[in-house]
């Protein structure tokens, strides 16, 4: 809702505002929903003037319809696909993480969520020469690991340092600072934040569940509302700035013993693509992980791929050892 203020639109002067207040019309919604004819009489202004005000207010505050054809054209020119650095994972995701939408990685502790995030960040900063916003809520970001991954890709120190400079890190540990940060980025700071480093191509939140899960439950609705706001700002940011939003989520165990992504039913509608990462059976220190696509609008669900965390620290030549299992196409 928007409160009516003097000078919001031509013709809305102090006198009229006072009259409208007297008629219990305080917000734009009130003006728009009321019967203009009756209101004009009560406030003793002309119907025409009030109608014009209504039209201007609507044009200012309503969302504007766009033709699907235009939208498609725009989308074709702006959508980018960011590689995760792992061919099998890329294939699972239909060639990578798409810009303009939220992709979620969920998995138990040590399932490689952060590693995939690091790899995406490295890929964007090194190969695409674009910036990345990395919001770290778990203290899990290790710059030396990023460097290790970069070293596997290039031996040029200069390039490595430049790539590191294009990764912008926020360390935020509670919901309000996360929201504050996201809104600041959303209101245009996103593109300014990274001068000289190319435009931002990815916003990574690792992990979104760490700040949201303490909010849920208990006798209050506030937590849900904050969660939906985080989702909303991420979605609009992804869409309007055409960046890829990559978030990580924890898992909960259902009664049957299977795992499912955390944060409940309301969150489940939010990411457009969801991937579940799991450790492969076989030793606590194995680096093999399996990924299952559990939600996607491009690929059939429940296809699986396997990838090796070690491959990101090896040099390019050595990374051919990735295996794939049970990959299915239909």
């Amino acid at each position, binding site marked *: 809702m928007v409160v009516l203020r003097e000078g919001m639109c031509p013709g809305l002067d102090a006198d009229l505002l006072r009259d409208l207040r007297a008629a219990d019309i305080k917000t734009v*919604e009130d003006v728009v929903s009321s019967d203009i004819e009756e209101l004009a009489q009560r406030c003793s202004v002309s119907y025409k003037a009030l109608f014009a005000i209504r039209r201007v207010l609507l044009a200012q505050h309503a969302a504007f319809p766009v033709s699907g054809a235009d939208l498609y054209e725009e989308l074709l020119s702006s959508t980018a696909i960011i590689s995760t650095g792992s061919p099998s994972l890329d294939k699972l995701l239909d060639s990578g993480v798409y810009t303009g939408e939220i992709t979620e990685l969920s998995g138990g502790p040590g399932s490689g969520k952060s590693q995939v995030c690091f790899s995406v960040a490295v890929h964007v900063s090194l190969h695409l020469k674009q910036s990345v916003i990395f919001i770290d809520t778990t203290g899990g970001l290790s710059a030396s690991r990023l460097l290790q991954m970069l070293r596997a890709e290039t031996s040029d120190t200069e390039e490595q340092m430049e790539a590191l400079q294009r990764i912008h890190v926020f360390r935020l540990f509670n919901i309000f600072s996360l929201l504050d940060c996201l809104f600041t980025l959303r209101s245009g700071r996103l593109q300014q934040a990274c001068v000289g480093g190319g435009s931002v191509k990815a916003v990574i939140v690792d992990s979104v569940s760490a700040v949201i899960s303490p909010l849920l439950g208990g006798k209050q609705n506030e937590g849900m509302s904050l969660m939906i706001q985080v989702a909303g700002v991420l979605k609009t940011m992804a869409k309007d700035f055409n960046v890829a939003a990559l978030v990580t989520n924890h898992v909960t165990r259902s009664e049957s013993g299977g795992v499912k992504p955390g944060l409940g*039913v309301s969150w489940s509608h939010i990411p457009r693509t969801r991937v579940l990462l799991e450790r492969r059976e076989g030793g606590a220190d194995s680096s093999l992980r399996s990924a299952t696509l559990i939600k996607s609008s491009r690929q059939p669900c429940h296809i699986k791929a396997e990838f090796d965390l070690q491959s990101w620290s090896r040099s390019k030549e050595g990374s051919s050892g990735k295996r794939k299992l049970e990959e299915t196409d239909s």
Partner: protein
Amino acid sequence: MTESGAQLFARLEARRCLEDIETRLFPGDGGPEHGEVVELYGSEGTGKTELLYHLLSRCVLPLGAGGLEVDVVFVDTDYSLDMLRLVSILDSRLNAARSFSSSGSDEEVLGSCLSRLLVVHCSSSSQLLLTLHFLETTLSSRPGIALLLIDSISAFYWLDRSEGGTSISKQEEKLSKCAELLGRLLRDYRITVFATCHAIRRNYSGPSSFSSSSSSSSDIDRPYLCRPWKRLVTHRLLCSRQETTNMAAPAAGSSEQKSQQVFTVHCTSSSSSKTKSYRSSSFCVTDSGVEFI
């Protein structure tokens, strides 16, 4: 408000009825008529979005390709419209139809299909209300518009709940206003509304809830939005996913089985003119969209 005779005509006569939009979905002759509201309800991964794209593409496709060739307004509150997916569905349908008749180049036909679609994004319930007011002019100027899609009507539920404070009526105020306005638009312009609604768990018992699945599923299927909206809904499509064996063990089974993820829709129609009727149908999702089985 004044309107010209032509506008009045456009308003009342020219809109196409969507009764036959998908005969396999609605019971008997119970498709949605002018001024009726269809709610697609289900939790994540139950095929709501696919079904919506199916209905959407049926509307915007040209008559020659088995479509209805009507204009559609898509109100996207979840920022969930996946244009690429929609285009791939349209493409495959157009390709299938092209084997029978040839009309214009691919790009052109696709372009004209897409130009029948108007998309509008909303980010709060008050913006939704203002936008619906704003759309009134669009509706009256474009007689081709027969369908208004809202994906999803429940997007702002939690925001409204927390903004409304402790009073229930305050919490529901905005959506009630939207519903009332929609009711008027439906009467005045004789359009049809399709809206999706996400299943939620109201009595949220935490991330690791141990509530038994049987009791929570019935709780999950119950409508929860405000009364004015409930009164508006005439058809309710309850979407669910069939728990197939390859769901429980996705590793096992061949690719043949895996593409056969089956979704079920249970339709309850209760239009004012008719008595309540039901129909269940199943479909699976392929590259070219929904296929009924």
